[in-house]
């Protein structure tokens, strides 16, 4: 049986799983970024905030995903099979990864640019939104791409505890010793990851027209 045949035979299930996988990876990405930006800013702005924040983030990132998928139901009061556990876990990972990236990206903004802005009369807030954040976009985008791609593939781990998404294709393939769903699953997950990657890359290019000009030279 070819993966394509399998897809045709189980179309509605596969599409449902694809959709689940997409939002389980995507929503944490957005929420994670929204949380990480102010935290990362604080870590870059106040020297004493950086070490504990980065250490805590590192610690959280170290926790294996399956462990987090299992502990969260107890903390949140949800069921094991609830997809929301996965979403929360991935949000935690996204924040853990991005806080450090945002802090480092803001710290890496050339101090000359900041000094010039302050000397010209920018307020702190204007400087943040007018100078520091735009210049930090490329690095934050790179971190976001890493988070996106990991999130998409991490979702499939949740099949071990039974949450239905693209990873179900793998468990199905294992239980029926059938290559087709496995290969289909691999293709779809990688494709989904590449789509996320591409969208973020495109968005970053849009936000950084000055880099486009440099590339065009």
């Amino acid at each position: 049986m070819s993966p394509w045949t399998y897809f045709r035979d189980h179309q509605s299930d596969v599409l449902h799983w694809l959709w689940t996988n997409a939002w389980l990876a995507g929503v944490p990405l957005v929420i994670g970024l929204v949380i990480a930006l102010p935290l990362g800013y604080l870590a870059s702005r106040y020297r004493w905030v950086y070490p504990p924040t980065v250490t805590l983030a590192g610690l959280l990132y170290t926790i294996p995903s399956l462990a987090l998928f299992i502990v969260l139901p107890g903390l949140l009061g949800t069921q094991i099979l609830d997809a929301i556990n996965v979403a929360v876990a991935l949000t935690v990972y996204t924040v853990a990864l991005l806080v450090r990236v945002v802090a480092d990206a803001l710290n890496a903004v050339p101090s000359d640019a900041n000094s010039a802005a302050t000397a010209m009369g920018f307020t702190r807030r204007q400087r943040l939104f007018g100078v520091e954040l735009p210049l930090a976009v490329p690095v934050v985008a790179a971190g976001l791409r890493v988070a996106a791609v990991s999130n998409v593939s991490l979702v499939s781990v949740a099949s071990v505890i039974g949450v239905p998404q693209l990873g179900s294709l793998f468990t199905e393939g294992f239980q029926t010793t059938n290559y087709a769903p496995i290969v289909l699953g691999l293709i779809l997950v990688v494709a989904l990851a590449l789509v996320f990657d591409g969208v973020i890359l495109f968005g970053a290019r849009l936000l950084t027209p000055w880099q486009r000009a440099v590339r065009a030279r």
Partner: protein
Amino acid sequence: MNPTLSFSNVLTWLNDPENWRGADGVLAHLREHIFYTLIAVVIAVLIALPLGLLIGHTGRGVVLGAGSANALRAVPTFGLLILLVVWISPKIHAKQEVSGLIQQGGLAYLIPTEIVLIVLAIPPILTNTYAGVQNVDPAVRDAARGMGMTGGQVVRKVELPIALPLIISGIRSATLQVIATATVAAYLPFLGGLGRFLVDGLTTLNDPHDGYPKMVSGAILVAALAVVADLLLIGLQRLIVSPGVSGRYSRRKTAPDATAEKTSVQDITVDLAGA
């Protein structure tokens, strides 16, 4: 009806010495987990370190190294695991048993698992190794050659020690990924490791003493193992990296031109590659 999941019996479970002893106990599974991890990381280092040093030193093959880390991140490791198991396991007929580490029949599932773990561990080590070597100041490399070191000596005595922080960072990243994936591998039959608690607890969810508490205990143990492994490697880094490279000397500097302490964009990029 699914029982509500509470943490109330977790401490009980962890404190019960019965749960620690025996072939299905914490100590046994911990041993297995460490065993699975060590094999994969050691083999990955044996492959990726020399390769990374070679690529970094000669500057050839960079494209190969750079692409692999990112590309592999998009592949779901669970899927890869299943694929290799379905493909290879039936072909392995060896029934050896290594007491305390490999159950009878486990080899058929362990081998594809280890293959996946090794494939997972290689890119972070490879990328970080060659990035570390490439980051060595060209003046230092020139001076080393100019003083009469052979190519091999330059790599061993100069490039490797200077690249060590990045290399160890890559090994840390690889180790964490391997520990996490070895946990997932418990989905497969005959395999041990701490993931066993996570998967087995699913079947006994209705038992308030042995279902969820077992799963959470397993989760805590795995997380603890990951953290301890990370700390050990950080400790190793402190021990073997020269203070001149890590900047870990008394800040009583004689020079006004302090080495830049700001993180550069390049540093962040390399960080992400190993993430």
